């Protein structure tokens, strides 16, 4: 029982990481009907920048905050420079552009920082804490906290600010948004900015666990995709819940199903993706839509 609880908590932590990235993917999908395959690499790049700041002497949380700001700006710039020219193009074309981003960012990280794995400091102590006689990692709670805080802040922003309303309107009905004065193009860019911030959070939370190198986010991207699909690509809540469910599920399966164990986690995620897409493409929280032409 103790082990079960431990696995659940650490599953929630990794789930928070997957959920943050999944939310980033869903954010962009909702506003632009596009999947940003480079979301993970953008997060990885931001994490490298954070490490650079920390190594230059910045205290952790200052580096964290500065990285989020830079990630935001980076996301906005990427949307305006690279994505905007293909705004009206079919989704597949934009996917190819994000693949180009994926390759380029990965290469850039190798170029600037090289390929060796580095350790990334954790914001939280790695000591254990005892609750009800069971030992849990403080770090896990910290990760859960940060991920949920990021998601909550974003939710509040979207719900209660004017710009947040404009962003949602632009996603729901761009034509009508223009008529009321919403600058839809900039809303899209802001969406990319926020998604980039989420990716950075995800990266900085996972780096202490798996060590930082240019390929760090690849598996995270796949899990995030699985989480987003599980929750429903249109649903922000679904992305977060999907992430948590997937995180816990993967942990439990790794622990209790020997066949899958640690070694078949990615194929398991693939099965989840395929399974959901075939059985209920709208995911847990999405609306079942009529197939558009």
């Amino acid at each position, binding site marked *: 029982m103790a082990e079960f609880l431990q696995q659940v908590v650490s599953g929630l932590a990794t789930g928070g990481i997957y959920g943050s990235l999944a939310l980033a993917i869903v954010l962009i999908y909702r506003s632009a009907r596009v999947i940003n395959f480079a979301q993970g690499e953008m997060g990885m790049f931001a994490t490298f920048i954070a490490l650079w700041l920390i190594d230059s002497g910045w205290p952790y949380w200052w580096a964290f905050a500065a990285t989020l700001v830079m990630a935001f700006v980076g996301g906005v710039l990427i949307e305006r420079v690279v994505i905007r020219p293909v705004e009206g193009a079919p989704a597949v074309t934009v996917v190819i552009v994000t693949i180009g981003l994926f390759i380029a960012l990965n290469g850039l990280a190798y170029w600037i920082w090289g390929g060796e794995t580095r350790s990334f400091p954790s914001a939280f102590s790695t000591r254990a804490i005892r609750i009800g006689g069971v030992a849990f990692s403080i770090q896990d709670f910290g990760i859960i906290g940060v991920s949920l805080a990021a998601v909550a802040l974003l939710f509040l922003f979207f719900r209660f600010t004017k710009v947040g309303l404009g962003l949602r309107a632009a996603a729901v009905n761009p034509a009508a948004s223009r008529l009321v*004065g919403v600058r839809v193009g900039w809303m899209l860019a802001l969406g990319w900015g926020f998604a980039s911030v989420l990716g950075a959070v995800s990266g900085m939370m996972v780096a202490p666990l798996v060590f930082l190198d240019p390929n760090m986010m690849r598996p995270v991207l796949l899990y995030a995709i699985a989480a987003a699909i599980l929750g429903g690509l249109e649903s922000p809540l679904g992305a977060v819940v999907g992430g948590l469910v997937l995180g816990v599920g993967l942990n439990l399966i790794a622990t209790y199903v020997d066949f899958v164990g640690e070694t078949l986690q990615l194929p398991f995620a693939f099965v989840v993706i395929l399974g959901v897409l075939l059985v209920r493409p709208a995911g847990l929280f999405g609306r079942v839509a009529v197939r558009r032409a």
Partner: protein
Amino acid sequence: MTLLELDDVDARYGATRALHGVSLTVGEGEVVAVLGANGAGKTTTLRAISGTVRRSGRIVFAGTSLARKGPEAGARLGIAHVPEGRGTFSELTVRENLRLGAYARRGRFPRADYEGMLELFPWIARRERQQAGTLSGGEQQMLALARALMQRPRLLLLDEPSLGLAPTIVNELFRIVRRLNHEEGLSVLLVEQNAAVAFETAARAYVLEVGRVVLTGASGELRRDESVRRSYLGY
């Protein structure tokens, strides 16, 4: 005083030209109708004004040229366009739809205007938190009008507001438009296929056919002219 002037305006969808040299004016405080059969270019005319279609020619609103401006700029200048299909934000709540109306306005959120909408459309108060997409057609049309009014526009562009609505609701809607025009001097450019209803509210009308203005005059005269009614207005 002329609020809106279109002079020799062309508009195109891709390679197809939909408007040929359309000229019209709307004076301050006027309600003007644009009539014609399906496909005559009525909706395109409104789109040309709000900047949601490719157009050329002179379009001047309150002294400012709209020639190279997009719809966002029009909204900021005081044009409220209630498009064909209403343009409701179906996944947002009624309240959020109304808030969006005030998006382009500077300063803090205009509570007084919001209260005013609740007075004008009392049913909104009961449905504030409801998803706009779950409203009936008539309610959505009213909501779209209310949202446009939240912009505190100088000019209201109404595209076929009566489409698909029951006659009682249509009457209610136009009653509100007339009231706003009388009490607040709101100028309106009204596109309608239902000419009879349009004549009751608009003082002047233009009749379009295949993208061109073929007739214009006071409502009273046009509605009395039998041949006009039969050839262009279908009744």
